[in-house]
């Protein structure tokens, strides 16, 4: 049996909270080409970005970011060739980018993601939307929109499984030791 029992809100409810909070960024009088660009971080962040994109602005471009090549711990963890490559819409210059991830923890993933985004162009602003903020930052990065904040016992981590269905589980790091 994996994971301790902790009551977690349903992913659907959390995605809905993010969707509501992000709606004001998409004024209905703007054409799709001028609307913000939603970009999800592989893999969990992309699933959520996809759901938000469907709910708010399906006619706009959706980006997928694989930050493997930008990780500061690349030489420690190596490559994961199974992760799909980044696909970002062309022309993020001057745009608002809604950057979406599932869990915000050390902040290093977001740093890597922003480095990669700037290699594609210079957005006007980046809004960071996060499903779960579990705190314990190692660098000064904060989200603009957070659906849920939780505290975990030391040695535990939270994981989004998916894409069908999307489900959050809390796992003990000890589970990985066999």
């Amino acid at each position, binding site marked *: 049996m994996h994971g301790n029992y902790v009551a977690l809100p349903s992913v659907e409810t959390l995605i809905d909270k993010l969707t509501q909070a992000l709606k004001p960024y998409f004024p209905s009088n703007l054409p799709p080409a001028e609307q913000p660009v939603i970009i999800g971080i592989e893999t969990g962040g992309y699933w959520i970005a996809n759901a938000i994109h469907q709910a708010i602005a399906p006619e706009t471009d959706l980006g997928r970011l694989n930050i493997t*090549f930008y990780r500061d711990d*690349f030489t420690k963890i*190596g*490559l994961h060739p199974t992760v799909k*490559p980044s696909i970002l819409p062309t022309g993020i210059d001057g745009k608002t980018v809604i950057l979406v991830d599932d869990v915000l923890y050390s902040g290093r993933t977001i740093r890597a993601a922003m480095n990669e985004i700037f*290699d594609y*162009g210079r957005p006007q602003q980046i809004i960071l939307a996060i499903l779960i903020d579990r705190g314990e930052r190692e660098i000064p990065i904060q989200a603009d929109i957070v659906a849920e904040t939780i505290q975990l016992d030391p040695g535990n981590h939270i994981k989004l499984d998916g894409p069908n269905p999307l489900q959050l589980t809390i796992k003990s790091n000890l589970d990985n030791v066999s």
Partner: protein
Amino acid sequence: MSAKNLQLDENGKLQHFLSIEGLNQQIITEILDTAESFTSVADRVIKKVPILRGKTVANLFFEPSTRTRSTFELAEQRLSADILSLNVDTSATTKGESLLDTIHNLEAMQIDMFVIRHKDSGSAHFFAQHVRPGVSVLNAGDGQHEHPTQAMLDLYTIRHHKQDFTRLKIAIVGDIMHSRVARSQIHALNLLNTAEVRVIAPKTLLPVDTESLGVQLYDDLERGLRDVDVVIMLRLQKERMSSALLPSENEYFNQFGLTQERLDRANPDAIVMHPGPANRGVEIESSVMDGNQSVILQQVGFGISVRMAVMSIIVGRTGLQVSE
């Protein structure tokens, strides 16, 4: 230490890239999959990822090269490495002490990775045996032995167009004896369980051990091309021919040059490849080289992604280590 094991570390991860022989299917597939992720880097505003940031790569070309050298350099630059490229005058160098001196001098400059091309077979292995632990060596062609990154980019090109190797008939045509590319290709195609690998060449240009490589031999081009899905042409290596193995270039073209008429014996959707540089009108007709079945220029572009993949996998090998 055996030459085979030299390229893998104690965890079976790639630490040098010296030959296809001695690798396994898993590593080959990992390189191809990783290369696919790198193809999109070329489409960006800033064609760079930071994987080799802070690392120094030395390109040592003891033999001339245009394509291999420039695609290695571009691959290194797109991975953000600092690079140093040297054309080493071979006339003054002989393998042995002076090559060792070169290694030690460069090591003193804190080089992390060497890319080496040399006219002597086994020189990349020799280099790899003598570098400090943690320093990696990539073979960019050693004598008549191997040219493994070329074989990988050829595999990548074939996979891009044809996907499943287990259904493919692939013909390698030409100067097999002098070709390090062919040797690497045959090993790689076998590792991916290619349905049939044919080698088509005049008997005088076949090395003695070809049959042991598990290929079908043909000395008639038209028969050999029948129903194949991929035609790989090799360059007639005039500079490596010590004795008269062929009557004349003209005669060679008449018997083994790829013309459209001959290519029509292959499957209608067959692709034509050539590692370059090609001798137009010697091993391949100009119109075939520029024709719509030719993927020769695509190979060059894929060479960058494949070389980026190999270098990234080597640098990232410490990942998943269980030590501590």
